[in-house]
């Protein structure tokens, strides 16, 4: 009877956790309530973990508490990484999550006295395959983002056929296990094949496509947790996994839409490897450039300035200098806003986090759809390390690989100034006609240094 009563407390703790998880995500719909959302998530997770420690099946606390302490010891530093390292941290945490899901699935296969049924075998097989491939795939993605591994897409002829055969082999092994679960020796082979597939899946994808890949891996990690919930008949896992899975899926769809590309193009397109050849037939065209002093004087003559940050600002870690620029200009009474393209930078929302880190108030960060109408009334659009997301060819040139991608219409501002180090193309590998326009000035240099020089100029003379 007390055993039954305990089970009820556990059940209700899990139900409360599920409710808190949903509320947690709901509170994230606005920055004012978002921290409340984290609190809800924390309470829900704590409830579930503590309840589980009371589960009578948990008899050997040594094997639980030591790993928990280790986990906390690893988790806290991973929570304190620098903001610019967030993309690779996210990839790494997907790897951890998938590793854990895969290991539980494997343990579930070997645990217990009675052999698994065919139906359970099917669930476990699928779960372990998804978990394993997400584990290695996420590790590769983290490596590329951390620049331990080469960023370029690594491709060879017939690679899609090889990859798909490996996936097919993993699935065939799972089917063989379902047909006869007694063939337990097939199981480790299946795991290894799935691990290999994860490597093959992500290696050919270029570093700049990693954000979409991360989101997809996010949704895989979520779905493997949900599947694990099916295996263990644990509804809290099913719910948390479904929430995580749909979140990753929605983010990947948002990114693909913002790039005007399809899923399969991202996964199999090996984007960003050859298109530089498209820029082959380049005519001599006039490019005007300016130095920090000229840029500062143009800025101080403006009334409305829109700053467009991009990947280059993140790489150069220029956000704090940008904040100084924002301060100086604001103090001069100039209206400064930031135009945020949904796929600027290396992950969805990346620019927002960097600028928020530099203490720029979030109501100055304006989404693309909202700010695009304002460029014709903007005196200066200052592009800092962004390229593709400002390329007017996406609007006008039907032959461009990015034709149809929604972009920030900076070219409609009275004056455009672009801070970048060279005339080199951005991630999409294509020329940007913006740089040859009459109202455009190139500010060649590293983003952090150049912005710093402008701030100094503004501080002294103007």
């Amino acid at each position, binding site marked *: 009877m007390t055993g039954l009563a305990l089970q009820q407390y556990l059940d209700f703790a899990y139900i409360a956790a599920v409710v808190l998880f949903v509320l947690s995500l709901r509170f994230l719909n606005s920055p004012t309530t978002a921290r409340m959302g984290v609190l809800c998530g924390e309470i829900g997770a704590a409830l579930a973990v503590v309840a589980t420690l009371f589960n009578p099946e948990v008899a050997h606390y040594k094997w639980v508490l030591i790993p928990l302490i280790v986990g906390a010891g690893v988790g806290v530093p991973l929570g304190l990484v620098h903001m610019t390292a967030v993309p690779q941290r996210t990839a790494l945490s997907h790897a951890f999550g998938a590793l854990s899901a895969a290991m539980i699935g494997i343990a579930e296969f070997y645990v217990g006295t009675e052999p698994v049924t065919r139906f359970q075998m099917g669930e476990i097989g699928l779960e372990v395959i998804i978990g394993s491939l997400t584990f290695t795939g996420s590790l590769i993605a983290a490596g590329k983002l951390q620049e331990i591994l080469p960023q370029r897409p690594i491709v060879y002829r017939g690679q899609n056929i090889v990859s798909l055969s490996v996936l097919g082999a993993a699935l065939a092994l799972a089917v063989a296990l379902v047909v006869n679960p007694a063939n337990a020796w097939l199981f480790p082979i299946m795991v290894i094949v799935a691990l290999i597939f994860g490597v093959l899946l992500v290696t050919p994808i270029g570093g700049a496509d990693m954000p979409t890949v991360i989101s997809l891996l996010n949704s895989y990690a979520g779905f493997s947790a949900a599947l694990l919930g099916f295996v263990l008949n644990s509804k809290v896992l099913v719910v948390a996994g479904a929430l995580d*899975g749909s979140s990753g899926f929605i983010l990947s769809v948002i990114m693909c839409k913002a790039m005007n590309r399809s899923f399969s193009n991202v996964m199999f397109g090996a984007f960003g490897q050859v298109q530089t050849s498209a820029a082959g037939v380049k005519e001599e065209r006039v490019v005007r450039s300016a130095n920090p002093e000229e840029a500062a004087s143009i800025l101080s003559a403006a009334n409305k300035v829109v700053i467009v940050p991009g990947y280059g600002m993140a790489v150069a870690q220029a956000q704090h200098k940008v904040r100084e620029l924002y301060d100086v200009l604001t103090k001069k009474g100039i209206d400064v806003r930031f135009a945020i393209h*949904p796929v600027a930078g290396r992950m969805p929302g990346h620019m927002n986090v960097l600028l928020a880190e530099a203490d720029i108030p979030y109501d100055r960060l304006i989404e693309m759809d909202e700010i695009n109408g304002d460029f014709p009334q903007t005196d200066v659009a200052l592009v800092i390390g962004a390229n593709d997301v400002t390329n007017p060819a996406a609007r006008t040139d039907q032959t461009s690989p990015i034709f149809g991608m929604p972009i920030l219409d900076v070219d409609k501002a009275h004056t455009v100034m672009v801070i970048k180090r060279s005339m080199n193309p951005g991630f999409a590998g294509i020329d940007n006609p913006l740089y040859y326009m009459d109202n455009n000035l190139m500010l060649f240099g590293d983003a952090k240094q150049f912005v710093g020089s402008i701030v100094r100029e503004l501080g002294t003379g103007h």
Partner: protein
Amino acid sequence: MPADFISNLYVFILAGFVGFEVIRRVSPLLHTPLMSLTNALDAIVVVAAIIIAGRHETTLTTVLGAIAVAASFSNMVGGFVITDRMLRMFKSGRSKQS
């Protein structure tokens, strides 16, 4: 097909709908924190890992379970820490502009 499977399928489908409706309305401003928060929530697989490790059935399963506990709990702790850190950075102009 076990009855549990059917009821888990209902839960999965409905949770998917909830996720879809709720997440579509998360402000794009917060898409990065969203990723780290869902990561922390997903780390709830730690509860399954705790049971596997705590049952201590065979050495193999216990080791697998213990690794899983450490891996997912680090996600949980790290995910909440970094999400909260990020969100603390978001300040509106009204509240902080001096």
